[in-house]
């Protein structure tokens, strides 16, 4: 293991990717330095992306996962890295935070929620530099601060894939059983009931069609009533409300914590 090389390599890499061009060159350089310095101290990579992508939270999540898979970020052999993405698309303004590596629980769901709620008002004002500076500071602090036992437990519960999948398999089996028994009940029921004849005649078979049967047909309009019900709105815009449940696994196989919000 050539740790010194890793440190140098990781630390000096570009950390700010301002594709949406919301930062001045000066701000970009300052943030890059901040990321590198803070990161080095707490032994993690901090990476900032901005872009203009068409889509909401899921697209942002996927964007960062792909970004992680395609770039060689991660401090030291532990591959610790925390990303932020700011999407400046006018229809889907939002941002997303993801943490990878062994110390991802330092930036767990609750903590991401906290970052999101602090950053949202600043982003809304358009102070992107300030917001990102706050982000780097908060990640820095969280990396120094050991998460509580409760937090670790939660993070563990979220990230323990095998246990989750086992549960999932049991659920799938139960649902499959239910479907199997109900479906075969219906099929057997049809087979059993199908075995007798049915009445196939109706009044039309015996009516004398040669004469007029309907002597009067008069429909008179009386009145109209109108009632109204308020629609239930389903599109809540999450102002400052982040979600810490955006954890997952990238296509490259790296598990991460995550969350974000719109602004």
């Amino acid at each position, binding site marked *: 293991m050539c740790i010194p090389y890793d440190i140098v390599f990781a630390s000096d890499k570009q950390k700010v990717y301002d594709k949406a061009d919301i930062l001045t060159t000066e701000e970009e350089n300052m943030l890059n330095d901040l990321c590198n310095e803070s990161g080095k101290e707490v032994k993690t990579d901090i990476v900032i992306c901005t872009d203009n992508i068409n889509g909401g939270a899921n697209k942002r999540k996927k964007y960062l996962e792909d970004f992680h898979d395609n770039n060689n970020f991660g401090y030291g052999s532990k591959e610790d890295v925390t990303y932020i993405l700011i999407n400046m698309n006018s229809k889907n303004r939002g941002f997303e935070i993801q943490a990878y590596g062994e110390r991802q629980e330092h930036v767990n769901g609750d903590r991401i929620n906290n970052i999101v709620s602090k950053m949202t008002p600043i982003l809304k004002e358009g102070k992107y530099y300030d917001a990102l500076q706050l982000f780097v500071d908060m990640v820095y602090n969280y990396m120094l601060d050991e998460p509580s036992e409760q937090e670790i437990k939660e993070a563990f519960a979220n990230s323990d894939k095998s246990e989750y999948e086992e549960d999932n398999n049991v659920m*799938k*089996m139960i649902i*499959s*059983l239910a*479907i*199997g*028994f109900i*479906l*075969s*009940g219906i*099929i*057997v029921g049809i*087979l*059993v009931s*199908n*075995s*007798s*004849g*049915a*009445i*196939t*005649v*109706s*009044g039309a*078979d*015996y*009516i*004398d069609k040669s*004469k*007029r*049967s*309907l*002597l*009067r*047909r*008069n*429909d*008179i*309009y*009386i*009145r*109209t*009533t*109108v*009632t*109204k*019900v*308020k*629609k239930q*709105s389903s599109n809540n815009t999450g102002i400052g409300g982040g979600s810490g449940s955006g954890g997952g696994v990238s296509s490259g196989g790296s598990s991460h914590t995550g969350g974000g919000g719109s602004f």
Partner: protein
Amino acid sequence: MVIQYKCQNCGADMGFDTKSGKLKCQSCGHEESIEQYNQNNIKDETIYEDLKNNEVNQYKCQNCGASIITEKNTTATNCSFCGAAVILGDRLQGTYSPIEVIPFKISKDEAQAAFKKWCNKSFFTPKKFKSANRIKSITGIYVPFWLFNLNVSGDILAQGTKVRTYDKGDYIYTETKYYDLYRTIDLDYIKVPADASEKMDDKVMDKLEPFDYGELKKFKPPYLANYIAESYNYTDKQLLSRVKQRVSKYADNFILNTTIEYSSVNFKYKNLKTIQKKAEYVLLPVWAMTYDYEHSEYMFAMNGQTGKVVGKPPISKSKVAITYIVLSLVLTLICRLIWQIF
């Protein structure tokens, strides 16, 4: 009075033939048209007057001399000893004389084949039942029916609604329009059948419909040769309420069919009168078999004109249970596999 039909050529017994619709000699194949058959021409109709033994009629088969055992409504049967077709003429007289008859079109062979197919149709029919030799007991019966002509007339007032919903702003609006619907009807229902035999299950008989009335023939006794026939147990008056009930349902449906453009219809006022205009006593052909299987009675019935089959074959509970469990497990497995793939 016993009527038996003897062949002019060879003197053997004649019976009704479903293919030709004529009387046919079972030994030499000689055919005799029934339509042109004259009751007064006793050339090939042999009527035997029996001795009237007080009040009880004693019938004797003229072939073998055995006495014919009948129930009191039987009008045609076979001699239980020699099998000769026997018609009890005096029971077909006066008010007990049917006006018309639909002759059998389905032969005994066809009925037996249909019964076999019916047994095999249901997957759950017990093996024991299928293998039992019941098929011989299938019987062609001319079942007594009354054909009613009824008139339903009167006025109806109903409330109809048309409902429309639409979105506007933050609200969903429901607009209901109310209408008063006036209808006056004058419906004639023609030849609505009602089974007049005590023995036959009304529900089963209703399911045998429709019969094609185009093939109704003026009644003549030779049609009954080689079948069982019965006279009615119930008069038209006794059956009227049952038919009225049926027709009033038809009338309700007729009215509802004139209001289909409405979302809901509630009758507010209904004044309908059903009158019997005519009732005709007819005999309709049915292939039937009743049988006991494990303490329950089942019935197979087949429209002797159209071949429509009614009735439930017995169901093996253990077969149903095994099928259910096996099918459930197979479906569960398939469901789980499909899930795994996607």
